[in-house]
């Protein structure tokens, strides 16, 4: 048995070594989209309070004009939303070490993530540790599980990336196309190429999503920060009345369920349903005009909470910023 244990340990260690070696030590593209995680954490470290921290998936990166929010509310803005594959648990956890009195957290999680019991993330949960190893500090057991689930896939991708590097064109998401707030700007002057995938809207939160909201709410209270819920954009094809009725029904039901969380909500999910002309490449990513409209709607809804505004209400709105 001893012989077996020694040999099997050696074998497993060797396999693990080449997986880890390939994942972490092969050359990386420092301008890849996921590498932006470093900049976001730096933003969290250096941005002065009072500040608004936006958390969620890529719909926030593509669909938020943080500069408009900054000018309107007078608060600094850190947009942490950039990849749905990181999962709800990671979004909530990665901001926790930075939270303090004077922080406002606005959580706008994509509906699909609220429907998915896997809150531990997908392949990006591994990729993020390549560029920002400290991310492991924010892992919970759910993230650890996802990490090991997706480690082989990342191993494959890393090898594939070495032997056949992917080409970069105007549609490729790049780290350098984020602005100082963390908004993605690379899609603003690019022709949309919308690919439609099934729209998943739950009528109720999963138990896992509920736990994450409640845990984050309590953590914010403990740290003197405030948590709000906002809503992502949602695409419903123009003229599809049946679909709109179906989606609205689900959103109303979800809204009622979310009210029980006891977290203030910015607007109503119905306010952020847009037709396809406002979307860029996926059903979650707004284009330039969609981004501007969504941000205006959000600011309008934020007026229900005067404490979010530290400057007088004179704002009329400006076109979408392309400030870097």
């Amino acid at each position: 048995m001893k012989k077996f244990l020694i040999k099997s340990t050696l074998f497993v260690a060797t396999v693990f070594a080449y997986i880890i070696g390939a994942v972490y030590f092969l050359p990386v593209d420092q301008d890849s989209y996921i590498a932006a995680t470093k900049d976001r954490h730096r933003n969290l470290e250096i941005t002065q309070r009072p500040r608004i921290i936006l958390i969620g998936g890529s719909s926030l990166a593509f669909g938020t004009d943080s500069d408009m929010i900054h000018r309107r509310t007078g608060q600094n803005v850190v947009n942490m939303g950039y990849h749905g594959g990181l999962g709800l648990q990671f979004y909530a956890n990665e901001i926790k070490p930075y939270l303090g009195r004077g922080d406002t957290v606005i959580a706008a999680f994509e509906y699909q993530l609220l429907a998915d019991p896997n809150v531990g993330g997908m392949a990006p949960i591994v990729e993020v540790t390549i560029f920002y190893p400290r991310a492991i500090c924010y892992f919970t057991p759910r993230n650890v599980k996802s990490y090991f689930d997706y480690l082989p896939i990342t191993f494959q991708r890393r090898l594939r990336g070495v032997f056949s590097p992917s080409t970069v064109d105007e549609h490729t998401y790049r780290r350098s196309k984020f602005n100082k707030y963390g908004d993605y700007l690379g899609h603003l002057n690019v022709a949309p190429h919308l690919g439609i995938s099934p729209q998943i809207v739950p009528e109720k939160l999963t138990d896992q999503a509920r736990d994450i909201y409640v845990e984050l709410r309590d953590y914010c209270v403990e740290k003197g920060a405030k948590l709000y819920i906002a809503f992502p954009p949602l695409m419903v094809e123009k003229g599809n009345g049946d679909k709109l009725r179906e989606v609205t029904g689900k959103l109303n039901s979800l809204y009622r369920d979310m009210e029980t969380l006891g977290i203030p909500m910015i607007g109503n999910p119905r306010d952020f349903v847009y037709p396809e002309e406002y979307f860029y490449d996926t059903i979650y990513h707004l284009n330039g005009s969609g981004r501007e409209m969504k941000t205006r709607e959000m600011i309008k809804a934020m007026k229900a909470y005067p404490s979010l505004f530290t400057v007088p209400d004179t704002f009329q709105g400006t076109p979408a910023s392309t400030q870097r």
Partner: protein
Amino acid sequence: MFFNSPEFLLFFTVVSIAFFAMPHRFRWIMLLGASYFFYMCWNVNYGALILFTTAVVYGAGILMHQKPKSTKSIILTTAIVLCLGVLFLFKYYNFFARSVQGFFDLVNVDRKMPLLGFLLPAGISFYTFQSIGYIIDVYRGEREPERHFGIFALYVSFFPQLVAGPIERSKYLLPQFRKKMTFDYDRVTDGLKLMAWGFFKKLVVADRLALYVDRVHINPQAHDGMVLILSAIFFAWQVYCDFSAYSDIAIGSAQVMGYDLMDNFNRPFHAKTINEFWSRWHISLITWFKDYLYIPLGGNRVPKWRWYLNIMIVFSLSGLWHGAQWTFVLWGSMNGLFIIISHLTIKRRLIIKDKIFGLIARVPAAVYGAAGAAVAAAAYWRGMQVWSPAGVVTAAACALLLFMAFVKTRSYFPKVLEGMKGFVAVFVTLNLFIFGAVFFRSQSVEVALYILAHLFDNLTFQGAALGFSTAEFVAMFFVIIVVEVFHAIQRHGSIRHMLREKPLLVRWALYHLFVFGILIGMYKTMQFIYFQF
């Protein structure tokens, strides 16, 4: 907890180490606890269901002992009705209700059948059949009833084979739980190698092919014949690799702890007749039906019409066992029909085969050569594209004719002819399975019929890749070839045993290559198909 998840690897490692670290007398407790934990990871309530079936069958076995035949029959019937009742309630009731509702609608009866909202418990068909097998064995006096409730509960719930088989026989598995297992290096490593082979088939082959098949079945009406043909072929290997992978992992993990489970697959796609196919596919289920249904019905020792009826009953029920849908029933019945037709036509087919191959043997080499050259010239003259379905067929025909011209005058020609006979038999058998499997995979009978009716519509390779990159598309064929190459080697003996005789460095290099192959070839995995049964 799926076999193809990191949690299972962790669970299995912990259980195996605990198993060997523990004194023999406590092992059954640990294994029983581990098995219930494994099962209840899906749903805690499942534990109550399996406990109910266990208690019913255990109690019936004890009650039945040394009772007169009439009393035994009553106990047996009660136990079977209770076990099948649970199975019916959770798996078949809604199917039954919908079918009755369909009938009511057809005859304009205004009555609504209520539907139940139960989730189908994983593996319920497997452990129910294993339990029924035990109670019938006790009834027949083929074994004494098991008096140790814990050991019996372990027999019903043993985690390696709990949710997708093999469906074990009490005569073989129960005594093994009393046997003291010691650590055997060769057995443990053999078990691990078998598990690795299972992981390869599931992660690299089945899940890869599933991508194509699933994409087609989202909307089969949107695809041309070539895509439908490819998806039918890919599904055959997908379902085989998926299910046999589960069996390999189950058998391998039990073997690590010293337990032998029965083989469930024996290279079924190499079968030369449909009868032989069903003696190589899902062996534990087919032999279960044979032992506990087909033979009690009279088997083949009855008038011919009864024999054929017995075959149809067994195969229709085996189809229904797979799922509460008419597609499964039709799939099973179709296989029964193939077997009957095979029996009915066997003499005639043999005569025709002998005549055809006799003719092939008599044609002179020069004729083959001239025919091959003529086909090539005609194709060239007509400007036929090689990468078109007609081009591929023509090229294959041409190659075959030229090959025949070459081998005709060689001394090994009779062997080639025998090989060709075997190949044709395998090809026909495989295609019958692929044909039937269309029903197995389709969402409804209508969809299956649509696919079969449009298999040869607009045959073109254009768009056949369904948006997959060329490398991904070619990989789908490549992994099938890899599986079949392994199977061809297995004809000459166990690959695991062959490996054992190689030097350490060679073995390790091969093991690493294999694991590397799994890592590089795997997809983010999906659930095992047979878990739903």
